[in-house]
């Protein structure tokens, strides 16, 4: 412990925080007027830095994403680094990455809501927003990677003169349906709890903002019937969106697992991908919460070390679960003894791209296991920022290992190949990162990023109760 304190000498001791329930947001209530004012200020404050970022990222989207994509469409896929036999490269890697990121919103918001985890309250919306924009960025990739994107509608089921319908046995059609379902439902799931907050914003704005919020708030007043309906709908969504979320990443994993490719055809890919997605998603939530906390006004009131602490525990659990699934997949592939699979496993660990494999293991297992057991580290936002960023690097490399590195090393050594992404691909990938950040940045000034009514509801429900000589936090259920 002494070494710990030395290493992180700047950290405050947490002994007192633990005793003082004020450290917890729910026991540090402020009047609703105050909360509203803080959230509104958060939305309306735009600094020079904000505009610079917004313009920079917007330009990034236009040039890096749409410029490069347009160039690729007009010239053909030869500008990518794809070659026989590696027909899927970083586009699919990034696709899986974004779909993975999008799992956090649902996980944090729906699962924690169903299980009534109170620490979720201040950041459910930030996580849901991440889901929606992560999906928006990810859903571009199935289009980007198409050889003939201009006929993408052949995949869409609609009556047509050709009598032809999509092949409902193809995982790519499942992908289309699942991503559409998930994108629509997560957008609605973002919107429903937002309505009361939009009404709050409507009451506090004038001009064009006022008319926009007025339309979006659907005439929300807050009557009993409206609340009842909203709670009912949120309840339906929270329960129904969880299986949708599981199905989405399972189907993404089936893109690989239904194939005959050695190293892909694995029965454990479904849960393995889901756990990986939640690991990278929850990590991305922490990354984003840190950024929000350090850039948005008043966010440090809403986001406290306790939240990083709780999410850190979750990440540690999911890192362990990920390691379990990874080892399962590895061991059984190795034990199965199929020559091609063993060659691939050897190539991953000792081949020319072995650094990818080792970095993945270090980022996904070693770093979280060595750090996140420590309460002090978990409660230090900037350290959590770095750790979670590294976990996402690790998760990106996991997908890179699974896709191009496995494809290049199949059953016939005559057809082995190495894949290196080319500038156009890297530009498009960076472009979607710009897109995600840009959308998030713009949205952070357009909608209340903290669900005020949920925070207030939580603060009303929390009380300190005297049990013997101790004051114990207790939660009353208001519904």
């Amino acid at each position, binding site marked *: 412990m002494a070494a710990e304190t030395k290493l992180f000498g700047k950290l405050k001791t947490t002994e007192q925080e633990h005793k003082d329930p004020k450290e917890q947001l729910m026991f540090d209530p402020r009047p609703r007027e105050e909360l509203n004012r803080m959230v509104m200020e958060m939305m309306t404050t735009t600094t020079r830095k904000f505009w610079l970022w917004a313009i920079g990222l917007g330009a990034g989207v236009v040039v890096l994403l749409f410029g490069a994509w347009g160039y690729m469409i007009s010239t053909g*896929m030869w500008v990518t680094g794809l070659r026989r*036999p590696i027909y899927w490269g970083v586009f699919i890697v990034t696709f899986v990455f974004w779909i993975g990121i999008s799992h956090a919103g649902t996980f944090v918001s729906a699962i924690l809501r169903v299980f009534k985890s109170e620490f979720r309250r201040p950041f459910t919306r930030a996580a849901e927003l991440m889901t929606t924009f992560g999906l928006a960025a990810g859903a571009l990739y199935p289009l980007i990677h198409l050889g*003939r*994107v201009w006929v993408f509608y052949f995949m869409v089921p609609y009556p047509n003169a050709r009598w032809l319908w999509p092949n409902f046995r193809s995982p790519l059609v499942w992908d289309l349906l699942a991503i559409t379902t998930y994108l629509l439902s997560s957008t609605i799931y973002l919107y429903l709890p937002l309505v009361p907050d939009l009404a709050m914003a409507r009451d506090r704005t004038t001009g064009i903002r006022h008319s926009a919020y007025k339309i979006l708030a659907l005439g929300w007043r807050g009557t009993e019937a409206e609340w009842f309906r909203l709670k009912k709908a949120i309840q339906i969504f929270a329960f129904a969106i969880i299986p949708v979320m599981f199905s989405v990443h399972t189907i993404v994993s089936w893109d690989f697992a239904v194939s*005959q490719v050695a190293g892909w055809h694995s029965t454990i890919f479904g849960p393995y991908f889901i756990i990986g997605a939640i690991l990278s998603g929850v990590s991305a939530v922490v990354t984003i919460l840190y950024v929000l906390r350090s850039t948005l006004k008043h966010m440090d009131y809403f986001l406290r070390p306790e939240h990083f602490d709780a999410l850190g525990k979750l990440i540690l659990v999911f890192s362990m679960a990920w390691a379990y699934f990874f080892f399962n997949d590895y061991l059984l592939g190795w034990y199965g003894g199929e020559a091609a699979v063993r060659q691939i496993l050897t190539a991953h660990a000792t081949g020319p791209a072995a650094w990818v494999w080792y970095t993945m293991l270090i980022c996904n297992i070693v770093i979280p296991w060595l750090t996140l057991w420590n309460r002090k580290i978990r409660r230090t936002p900037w350290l959590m920022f770095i750790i979670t960023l590294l976990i996402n690097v690790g998760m990106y490399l996991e997908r890179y290992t699974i896709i191009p590195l496995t494809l290049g090393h199949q059953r016939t050594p005559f057809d082995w190949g190495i894949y290196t992404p080319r500038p156009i691909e890297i530009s498009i990938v960076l472009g979607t990162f710009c897109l995600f950040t840009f959308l998030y940045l713009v949205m952070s000034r357009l909608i209340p990023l903290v669900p005020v009514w949920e925070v207030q509801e939580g603060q009303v429900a929390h009380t300190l109760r005297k049990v013997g000589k101790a004051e114990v936090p207790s939660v009353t259920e208001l519904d």
Partner: protein
Amino acid sequence: MAEVSKGIAEKWGLVVDQDRCTGCNACVVACSMENNVPFTGEDNVAFGRGTYWIYNKRMWEGAYPEVAPAFQPVMCQQCGSAPCEPVCPTFAAVHSEEEQINLQIYNRCIGTRYCANNCPYHARQFNFQDPDIPEPMNSYLNPDVTIRRRGVMEKCTFCVQRIVAGRQTASAEDRPLRDGEVTPACVAACPSGALVFGDLSDPSSRVSQMAQNERQYKLMDELGTRPKVTYLKGGGRNGG
């Protein structure tokens, strides 16, 4: 409605006698000319983007100093249960119920390249760019085969244009197809007679007879793809 075929339906089949193959690559050239396979240039071929519907794998066999080349022409195996078909979202890779071969419908293909990943034989080729056919070369193009533009997959079709033409001629003359009447370009060009094509459903056809040979094996038979291409191997060093 089409009847779902019970059991294993067989129609066209190809036998490759590796012991007879000299590795002359005439099949590759003939195939490229017959099927308008684009020439992508040496840089692209070196990079791994050459399009060949049939390619000749050369392997070295034996231990030094007794080393000899072995040739294995590989084309689409026209699997009876093809891994490439079910994964295509648009039915561009589809099984022909009539001819019992795998089809690639270029105008339906949207270029997901999923089929290519899923083909264990790596027989599928992707058009990374539009074919470059300079002026006099376009006279060589075969009008019976679609010129594929960029972004679509393509692969060996057993020269289905010849099959359809042969079938239509026979039907116009009101007679069944004769054995050996339809030959794909590679078979027609093979100087050593290493490639034999015919109707596997007819037990008396030459290809059926040869496919019974004790030297026969199928590529990656263990994957359960039921290839229509049978390889013969096992004779002497320089062919049997």
